[in-house]
């Protein structure tokens, strides 16, 4: 049980308080962007390219414009007149808003149709005739680097190939030396496929430009409203739309997972059209557009290697990555980290040599490189290290749990310097794995596995993943997006009657900030969490912050809340001393009040103190009871987890079933166990998704083969097992409340546990590795390759 410092009434940290935001959602009173309706609003639909790579010879809008109710058709040439046809990506690359001559991927925006209704806009879209001259697209990222490959980004001056950047970290020579002298080396090529966040709400906006005031209000699905306001100012400042004239409102968001971090062309077109017409413009993409054109995640081709001793000591790792970024580098990564935090891939193990390198290429696929509930490429890294750890264990003939226990960084060795430059803050990996093994009955399962193999009807596999996450970006000295440092903020105002409102630079998309931030403030000030209103997502009222993604809200804005509250507690102490006529040194704090040491009956509650701040504060002190804090974390936080999956494979049909899955997470101190557990459940389902079901598939001509919810397989309640969850607590030593962040850990940790389990189930048949998503058909083909069905014929 978690020990709470506050009473249930106050509801500080550790209490499973029911969520404050639920009331509106369960009664249909949420306010999502498609619910926004403004007078005179027009609707926008987007004509998209059927080709992955083609010249635009002509766009004929006459038939569309002839439809009553169609107001305008906007093309790249129209935007070009205002210099609005290009925009920067978050990685300082460039992206077309609308093309003037060439389309670079299927479903790319080609023209926008504005009409008086949603249906008429769609009619207009169907009537726009575009004459294309198709070209042969570059779809294979490896072939993109061939000398005779067409140079896709000829818009970039002097560009002579499709290479975007090269990145490396670690000690190459030292690592090579270890590999050259190692007893055992395992090596595997693996692909972490292109997938899509597919939040149930798609993206959209209502852009409302007021010509008289020269002011834009932008309602949009964004996880980072303040950063987006700055980006809009950078894109449109030259036409007079400067940052003080822009208000971004991010209303309720129907799931984000990273997909609502970037700026998509649709937003910019809507702004441009509203700017030109003076009418509010609504753009809501449909699901197919969302899957086919919005940012993808992953798409890393990794060659992974691990070296070690024959008795199972890991000595070195080496990863080589080819990243397929599609048409432009629109990753949502901090500027200095083109591969995100991939270098966490040395894992939870104690060894001193690692070298990683990556190259990124352009292809004719949609741009992106966002999270899919993962902190900046950590999923790719964790998949590689956890697969390699299992392969290494298999090679040296050791139980994978035992091998992990023998290689873990010990809890007394933190802070631990990783060979790729991180300083892991804390962890207790042994305790986590032991707890997971006890919960699942690990040793009994190993016995059952042998029995089931003898029986031969179903094969049992047990897969482990013991991952280290890295979240909470991040320290301003290293982390920025487009130059803006990645701090985050909180502003607390306590009203005279002792009730509060607090505003943040982050933006919940379902994480429950309205509840958890209130709990942090309740913990620090003793004001009941029910009396603390939380607001985010309006750039006119909230303090500046970089938004919610990469599990950063609790590590950054949550810390800011605690720090701002502590400033207020310091002020409260002065006021209490004044009211009680004692010196500050004589006072002691317990949640909700200051009392005189040794005389607890002489006390002032926080409510009395706040009232005095407005009515009877000491002379010379500023009135009011408000504080703001911008929190710059000294380090990232390093949550960890030990996951065990039990999978069954049908020996005849290759059907795969996850029988059990135990997840033990360590996210440091827990604010609300119910919400943390909910985050873990959801993250695990977004872990089984890429492990077994999801992948965006393209053919050689650049056509997406599964760009709808009919064939892009988001798991339902049937595919999702009943997740079993638990936790250990290793507080983050540098964080004001010792919390680490949790939203993404399960999505990072689950896929290798699942794949390790499936591989383990069929390892005795000669299978060494399986690519994700592991489908029954893929498994069937792999078993065919090793002659399994012949033997059994």
């Amino acid at each position: 049980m978690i020990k709470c410092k506050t009473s249930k009434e106050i509801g500080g940290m550790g209490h499973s308080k029911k969520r404050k935001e639920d009331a509106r959602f369960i009664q249909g009173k949420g306010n999502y962007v498609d619910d926004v309706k403004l007078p005179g609003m027009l609707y926008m639909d987007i004509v998209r390219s059927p080709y992955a790579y083609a010249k635009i010879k002509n766009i004929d809008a006459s038939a569309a414009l002839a439809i009553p109710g169609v107001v305008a058709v906007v093309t790249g040439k129209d935007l070009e007149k205002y210099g609005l046809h290009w925009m920067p990506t978050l990685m300082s690359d460039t992206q077309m808003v609308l093309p003037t001559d060439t389309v670079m991927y299927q479903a790319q925006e080609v023209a926008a149709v504005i009409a008086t209704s949603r249906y008429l806009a769609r009619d207009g879209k169907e009537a726009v005739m575009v004459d294309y001259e198709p070209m042969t697209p570059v779809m294979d990222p490896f072939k993109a680097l061939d000398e005779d490959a067409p140079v896709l980004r000829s818009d970039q001056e002097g560009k002579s190939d499709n290479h975007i950047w090269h990145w490396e970290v670690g000690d190459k020579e030292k690592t090579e030396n270890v590999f050259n002298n190692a007893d055992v080396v395992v090596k595997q090529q693996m692909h972490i496929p292109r997938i899509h966040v597919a939040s149930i709400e798609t993206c959209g906006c209502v852009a409302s430009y007021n010509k008289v005031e020269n002011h834009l209000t932008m309602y949009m699905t964004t996880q980072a409203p303040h950063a987006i306001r700055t980006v809009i100012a950078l894109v449109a400042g030259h036409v007079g739309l400067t940052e003080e004239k822009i208000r971004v409102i991010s209303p309720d968001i129907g799931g984000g997972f990273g997909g609502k971090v970037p700026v998509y062309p649709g937003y910019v077109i809507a702004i441009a059209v509203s700017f030109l017409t003076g009418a509010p413009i609504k753009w809501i993409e449909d699901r197919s557009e969302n899957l086919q054109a919005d940012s993808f995640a992953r798409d890393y081709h990794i060659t992974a290697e691990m070296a070690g001793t024959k008795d199972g000591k890991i000595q070195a790792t080496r990863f080589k990555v080819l990243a397929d970024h599609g048409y432009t580098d629109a990753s949502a990564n901090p500027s200095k980290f083109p591969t995100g935090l991939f270098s966490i891939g040395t894992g939870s193990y104690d060894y001193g040599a690692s070298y990683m390198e990556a190259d990124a290429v352009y292809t004719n696929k949609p741009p992106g490189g966002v999270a899919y509930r993962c902190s900046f490429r950590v999923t790719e890294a964790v998949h590689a290290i956890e697969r390699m750890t299992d392969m290494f264990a298999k090679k040296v003939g050791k139980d994978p749990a035992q091998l992990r226990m023998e290689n873990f960084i010990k809890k007394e060795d933190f802070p631990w310097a990783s060979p790729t430059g991180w300083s892991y803050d804390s962890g207790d990996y042994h305790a986590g794995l032991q707890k997971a093994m006890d919960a699942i009955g690990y040793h009994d399962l190993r016995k059952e596995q042998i029995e089931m193999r003898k029986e031969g009807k179903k094969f049992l596999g047990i897969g482990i993943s013991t991952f280290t996450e890295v979240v909470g970006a991040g320290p301003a000295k290293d982390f920025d997006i487009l130059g803006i440092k990645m701090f985050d903020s909180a502003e607390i105002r306590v009203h005279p009657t002792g009730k509060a409102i607090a505003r943040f630079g982050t933006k919940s998309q379902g994480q429950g900030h309205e509840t958890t931030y209130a709990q942090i403030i309740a913990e620090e000030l003793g004001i009941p969490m029910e009396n603390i209103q939380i607001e985010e997502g309006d750039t006119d009222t909230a303090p500046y912050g970089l938004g919610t993604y990469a599990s950063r809200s609790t590590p950054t804005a949550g810390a800011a809340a605690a720090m701002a509250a502590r400033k207020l507690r310091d002020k409260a102490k002065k006021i209490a001393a004044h009211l009680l006529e004692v010196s500050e040194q004589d006072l002691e704090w317990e949640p909700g009040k200051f009392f005189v040491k040794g005389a607890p009956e002489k006390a002032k509650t926080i409510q009395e103190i706040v009232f005095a701040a407005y009515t009877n504060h000491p002379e010379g002190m500023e009135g009011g009871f408000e504080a703001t804090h911008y929190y710059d974390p000294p380090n990232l936080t390093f949550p960890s987890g030990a996951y065990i999956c039990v999978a069954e494979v049908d020996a005849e049909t290759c059907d795969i079933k996850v029988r059990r899955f135990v997840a033990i997470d360590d996210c440091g101190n827990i604010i609300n166990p119910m919400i943390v557990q909910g985050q873990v459940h959801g993250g695990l389902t977004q872990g089984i998704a890429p492990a077994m079901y999801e992948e965006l598939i393209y053919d050689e001509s650049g056509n997406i083969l599964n760009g709808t919810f009919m064939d892009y397989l988001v798991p339902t309640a049937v595919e999702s097992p009943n997740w079993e969850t638990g936790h250990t607590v290793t507080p983050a030593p540098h964080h004001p409340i010792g919390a680490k962040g949790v939203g993404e850990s399960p999505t990072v940790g689950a896929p290798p546990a699942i794949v390790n389990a499936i591989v383990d189930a069929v390892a005795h048949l000669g299978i060494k590795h399986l690519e994700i998503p592991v489908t029954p058909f893929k498994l069937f083909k792999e078993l065919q390759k090793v002659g399994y069905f012949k033997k059994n014929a």
Partner: protein
Amino acid sequence: MTKKITLKINGTEHTMEVEPRMLLVHAIRENVSLTGTHIGCDTSSCGACTILIDGKSAKSCTVLAVQAQGKEIATVEGLATAEGLHPIQEGFHLNHALHCGFCTPGMMMRAIELLEKNPNPTEEEIRWGISGNLCRCTGYNNIVKAIEWTSAKMQGKDLPSTEPEFV
């Protein structure tokens, strides 16, 4: 060309002129401004737009508004009464069965019909019963729990604990 129809939604009649091609979900959201019913896809796969038509759950993106003439339509906005929340709303709240809230109205409307037809569903029956509704946030564990809790509540049985088993 439009057609005059009357939709009875949550007990109230709304008369409107609609094009024959207008989807029921758009009529509900835009003509009647009941925006609790959501749209999550264009292939009738996600279930965010689930409502009840004459007591049967239906994806309102697959029904034309004109087809709903004369039928009893129930949406999430009609669940709570003067007496308070509907048990399914209580169940979802107490069991943390929602995160972003976008799939929630459709999921609850589906669950209502499920429980009406099968007041004591097993976990497997619940999972199959809501398999036409996608949730991207919760991982379904707590949705199943919420429906089990509601089942008990609606039958006056002992209520399962709503404390998370997270140890």
